[in-house]
């Protein structure tokens, strides 16, 4: 495990609004995440979890308000890994070709070695030459995670990482996220309900209609946050 080689970075959303037409996806949201925290975002469909993650990754600009990374407002793409609901990899390329391509764009040093290491870590070493379109959902998710980890990010964003995974793949993902959390990465992940993955979080935040309605670091109250969502 070589993630978080750089110091972890924190995030601060300050009075953030995101509006699509007349609809607010986020409304006056203020949230600070300390470096090294593992935060689970809970909330119903449409509560603003995905929008929050896309703003955190700089893919979407807030309509109002600011976002800073450990006090810096500049884009931190090179230090951020994002695993979205879509896999963000090419079906027509093999697992290895996908990772080598993104490693080249990111300017990863010793990219062949790094790609081999990651493929082996995510358990795809033997399928590295297979086209991604031949993979199951769980295997695609592993490629997506490997892609997000290529540049040793110190901030990891996961949008419902366990969606579509079978129990075996979910157990693998939980173990892998635990290793990342223990290595000091700052992790922000959106989840639908209480799950194995949710139990990794050191803090849970519930969103409703684009605002934070609950925020706790106490494991005892996690269940109420997720059970409200319907998990």
């Amino acid at each position, binding site marked *: 495990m070589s993630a978080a080689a750089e110091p972890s970075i924190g995030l601060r959303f300050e009075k953030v609004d995101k509006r699509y037409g007349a609809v607010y996806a986020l409304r006056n949201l203020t949230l600070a995440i300390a470096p090294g925290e593992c935060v689970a975002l809970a909330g119903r469909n449409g509560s603003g979890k995905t929008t929050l993650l896309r703003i955190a990754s700089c893919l979407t600009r807030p309509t109002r308000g600011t976002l800073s990374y450990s006090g810096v407002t500049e884009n931190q793409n090179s230090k951020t890994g994002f695993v979205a609901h879509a896999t*963000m*990899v090419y*079906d027509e*390329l093999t697992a290895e*070709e996908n990772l080598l*391509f993104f490693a080249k764009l990111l300017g990863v040093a010793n990219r062949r070695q790094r790609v081999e290491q990651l493929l082996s870590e995510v358990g795809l070493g033997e399928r590295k030459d297979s086209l991604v379109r031949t993979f199951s959902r769980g295997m695609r998710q592993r490629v997506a995670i490997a892609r997000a980890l290529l540049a040793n990010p110190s901030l990891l964003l996961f949008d419902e990482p366990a969606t579509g995974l079978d129990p075996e793949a979910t157990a693998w993902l939980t173990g892998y996220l635990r290793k990342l959390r223990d290595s000091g990465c700052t992790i922000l992940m959106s989840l639908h309900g209480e799950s194995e993955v949710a139990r990794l979080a050191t803090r849970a935040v519930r969103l409703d209609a684009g605002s934070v309605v609950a925020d706790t670091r106490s494991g005892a109250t996690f269940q109420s946050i997720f059970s409200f969502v319907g998990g």
Partner: protein
Amino acid sequence: MGLLSNAAALLGKEVRTEFRSRELLSTTIVFVLIVVVLFSFTFDPTTNESHRFGPGLLWLAFLFAASLMLQTCFLREQVNDTLSALRLAVSDPFAIFLAKIGANTLFLLLTELLMLPVFAALFNVSFRGQLPGILLTFFLGSLGISVAGTALAAISAQARMRELLLPLLLLPLLAPILVASTEVTISLMAPEPFMQWKGIGFLVVFDVVFLTALWLFGEYLLEE
């Protein structure tokens, strides 16, 4: 990693994925072939008529091919949201446009070069001795179509009714380049062929202006 090396990596990916699937090239080539053959049936192509109408019909066929090609260039990136991954990975979003323009120009040129002998045979024209001029015109025309078309494809990919929007925007915007390319091709196919440098100059200016505009404002076209 610099703009050009990023663009080269992206162009390599575009070429590799296309030559692996061959979806776009095979569809476009078959489509242009059908259009050129159908046009050849519309009148008896004597040499005089071919010189008058041929270049226009040829560039119209290329424009149809380009609209097919451009339609998918950003839509393909939406299937697995790979456009977001590219935006997160490149240091300058213009690299994404450069690679798309490069790939579209290359694929369009390939289609044009394959169609050239078919057109010459069906329309009873000869380009002998004029090949360098024809290649220059095809390159500048295809580049212009790709630059303007890639920008519009990025805009239309995020819109509703995107399949209708691109041709609607594309045809009026590309009319000047179509006229200039056709006029230069007519002059190269004349009984006494000559290079119409005014038309070539127009194509160069069109390409440079649109490329500069894309360099300045392209980032905003990719935003959500």
